[in-house]
């Protein structure tokens, strides 16, 4: 396990501050569901950054991390759906809630292949939506071009999620040391992309 460095802590603190800003100021004026969803997603980012600063990367060893981390893409994707395609919000909310429950149940009751497949399906769907929707809406003129940054953030969250998920299942795509080295940078870049992208939408 790589020890957390001073630079990691600075990057994570910036991530926490940006997330707090987004929760306090960045999502004002949106619909109730979008505010709740973005608050959950950025809230998990905020708390996770602080816990990593305090406890170091060892905190990622906890079995609860995968379940709680799923709230980030699910919250963001549901927020985007409710903001831009509200006709699908009830259906997608059902998918998000059931998907989250499925991740939790399979992770605790049947850890192994079923849990991994469930995680990949739910996480993957939410990640793809965050990646694709902003790009499509920007190209269609529904949102301004800067909104593409949210899609880039979605791509980054997907990369981070995959790296951590495979690491947790014991088949890491990169060495644990490399993953922990890039993780704080990835988290900050992702948060920056989301905050600026949502502001420019």
């Amino acid at each position, binding site marked *: 396990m790589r020890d957390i460095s001073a630079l990691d802590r600075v990057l994570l603190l910036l991530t926490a501050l940006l997330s*707090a800003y987004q*929760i*306090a100021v960045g999502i004002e004026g949106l619909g109730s569901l979008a*505010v709740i969803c973005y*608050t959950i997603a950025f*809230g998990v980012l905020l708390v996770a950054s602080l816990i990593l600063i305090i*406890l170091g990367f060892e905190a990622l060893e906890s079995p609860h991390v995968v379940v709680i981390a799923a709230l980030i893409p699910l919250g963001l994707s549901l927020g985007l759906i409710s903001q831009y395609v509200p006709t699908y919000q009830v259906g997608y909310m059902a998918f998000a809630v059931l998907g989250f429950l499925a991740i939790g149940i399979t992770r605790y009751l049947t850890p192994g292949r079923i849990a991994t497949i469930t995680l990949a399906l739910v996480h993957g769907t939410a990640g793809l939506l965050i990646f694709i929707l902003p790009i499509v809406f920007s190209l269609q003129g529904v949102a301004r071009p800067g909104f593409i940054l949210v899609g880039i953030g979605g791509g980054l969250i997907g990369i981070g999620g995959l790296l951590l998920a495979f690491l947790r299942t014991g088949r890491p795509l990169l060495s644990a040391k490399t993953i922990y080295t890039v993780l704080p940078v990835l988290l900050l870049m992702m948060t920056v992309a989301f905050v600026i992208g949502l502001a420019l939408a």
Partner: protein
Amino acid sequence: MIIRSIGQQVRRRLGVYWKLIKSLQTGLLLLTGLAGYMSARCPVITWRTLLALTGSLFLAISGSTVLNMVYDRDIDAQMKRTCNRPLPLGQIRVVEALVLGVGLSILGIGWAFLLSPIYGIVVFAGFFFDIVVYTIWLKRRTAWSIVWGGIAGGMPILAGRALGVGQIDWIGLLLSLAVLLWIPTHIMTFNLRHKADYQHTGVPTFPSAYGDRVTYLAIALSSVVASVAMGIAAYGIGMTWGYLRVLVVLSAGLLVLAVSSVVRPSVRLNFGLFKFASIYMLSSMLLVLVETM
């Protein structure tokens, strides 16, 4: 040459004094006092009063901290965590530290009374509970002394609020309760981390009196109740929804860590909870300050 030497001596002395006032702890308590005052909002706030509040609170808190160090120097000398403090190391004489502590306290409390009688009374109460009730009377007798230490710690925010609104109101009491409940978690965490040290000195602590399990539970419970008190007070102050959302998120994080530390207790997790509770308290104060500016 002589001037340079005197300058170095003065700087060294101030360095020792700085260690004696526990700058981090004093700074955090000072911040709570400022947050309490700012929570009263405009048009009551003036920069002159704000500076006077900062000065008087800094002096009063520093004074009581120095006196605490003077009284507890025998305990500090026996503990690994505290044996490097100026008094056990002999970097300062007891009489000099005593004069410094008394001087700072008189200046701080006196200035507080000049600002406002009610503010002065609360600042004096904080000093009284910290030195007389907590340090001298109860610390070496009962593990429950931390409650009184907590009451003393909750006084700066109550004082700040009382100065701002001119009375002691329910918001001030709730803010004070939040700090009061945070302080035992701070002390109990140190009790757990340095258990052998405390046992060696014979100072009664929660872990030695009731066991680790009860202490973990007490820390978790007081952290959660502190965050609830803070949340209600923030709502009472009229904090906007955006800032309240941040507070709710941080409270949720605190709750998750508190539950985890009870379900799977460990020194590391407990330390994490304590650190998070400290960040929570600091963030809450900053949110109150930023929001009311």
